[in-house]
């Protein structure tokens, strides 16, 4: 491998989240030391994934089949759709095992500052899904950032005409959290989203 190839590899690795120039150099060295066990299989896996993984045309999840395995799973509850920002959030919810319904991946959040408008997100297809028979509840699981909350409000407004119940994740006291240590904003959010027992 010539110096130019190596440099290109390092530059590409450095574009991955969590890797800076220094860690990219380390990763490139590790790959080169383990050509057979790691580098070649990784290259093949990357090529295979690039060729076969696609966006699910129903929910926006990533999978090798379309519709994705979650949308195809007849055992899952088709009455409930959980709306997330990105596929990473879908994976986090799947890891928790707490949700057995369907998903809808928006593909980001509304941000005027970054030029992301409703047309750039999968909002229109969510409204179409909500009109389908059988959908009874839509759970908004966007993050508690300014953009996440503004997006949740926007989506709620767009779903108002569908008659489907819209809920959002609770905000407030973390599991194992002591009230004394919570900031005022979190406490206020927790009070607002309190539940009758």
């Amino acid at each position: 491998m010539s110096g130019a190839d190596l440099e290109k590899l390092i530059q590409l690795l450095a574009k991955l989240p969590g890797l800076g120039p220094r860690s990219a150099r380390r990763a490139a060295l590790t790959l080169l030391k383990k050509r057979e066990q790691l580098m070649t299989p990784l290259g093949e896996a990357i090529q295979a994934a690039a060729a076969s993984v696609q966006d699910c045309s129903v929910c926006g999840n990533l999978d090798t089949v379309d519709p994705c395995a979650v949308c195809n799973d007849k055992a899952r509850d088709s009455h409930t759709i959980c709306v997330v920002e990105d596929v990473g959030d879908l994976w986090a919810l799947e890891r928790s095992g707490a949700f057995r319904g369907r998903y809808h991946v928006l593909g980001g959040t509304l941000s005027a500052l970054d030029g992301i408008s409703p047309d750039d997100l999968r909002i229109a297809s969510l409204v179409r899904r909500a009109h389908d028979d059988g959908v009874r509840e839509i759970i908004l699981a966007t993050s508690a950032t300014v953009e996440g909350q503004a997006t949740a409000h926007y989506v709620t407004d767009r779903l108002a005409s569908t008659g489907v119940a819209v809920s959002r994740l609770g905000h407030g006291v973390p599991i194992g959290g002591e009230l004394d240590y919570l900031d005022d904003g979190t406490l206020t959010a927790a009070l607002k989203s309190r539940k009758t027992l």
Partner: protein
Amino acid sequence: MLTGANGAGKTNLLEALSLLSPGRGLRGARLAELVRIGSDAPWGVAATLVRGDATHELGTGSDPANSERRLARIDGAAARATDLGSELAMLWLTPQMDRLFAEGASARRRFFDRLVLGLDPTHGTRSNRYERALRQRARLLQEGRPDPAWLDGLEREMAETGVAIAAARRAYLERLVAALALGNDAFPRPAIAVSGLVEEMLGRASALQAEDEFRQRLAAGRGADIAAGGTAIVGPHKSDVIVVHEAKDMLAERCSTGEQKALLISLILAASQLTGAERGATPVLLLDEVAAHLDPDRRLALYGALEALGGQFWLTGTEPGPFQPLLEKAQFFDVRDASVSRL
């Protein structure tokens, strides 16, 4: 005590320390301006914080991979810059602040918010959220095809965080006024008030009512905000802090330069006393060229007040003369050509 000629690097040292608290430090500099001129090497500041038996390692600096980003570490673990405020309260007084009462409202508001932050470290997070929603809304209005539902969402966010900011200011003001009442007789007592739409709403309605009212004001004001360039013309980002020399019943901006400085010192001392009493640790005070405008009596009174507060104070001056009364009580350092040596 840091002494040295003009341009020796005394204020630089204080600025480095000030970066161990959230925000832009005592010059209000942008990250790119903190780099050594003519160099693109990253910068960093680290300190060991000793309080009683507990020791904490604090560090902050620019991200080597992205000079526009600031990193923070607490005890070796990555933290947000706003988290530094939970570990260490810090206040400062610089010659630039001599014009605080004569300048526009934004400098006074920032000064007051920094005082609030000393007692309530979450005030910074709240302000960042508000600022972000404000900017998102302004951009939408500027673009000329504002989507009402999108604006509703942002205004809801602005109302929630805006009322929380105003409530934190009001709560702080009440305690500061109480602390000022116990103030030092050597310095004039300031009467202080926060004037702003949302602060006034909270004076006559509950927080939830104020949220509704502020949100309605924002929705009704979209047209006027577009005409004004996009940024909302009302809200806690427009509030002002009014300071009056109580004994003279005179607005601070009309007082002499020396009296204005003395009023500022009163405020800083009362705020330090308040934070010390409530958080159990007096803020670290960075006092740049503070002795310059004070007559000898007030200088002595200041030293006495600092001693009574019992925290850590960093003072700078061009010559050691005015600091003579502190000879037995402080460590003296000479700053020359950007290096520091113990005197």
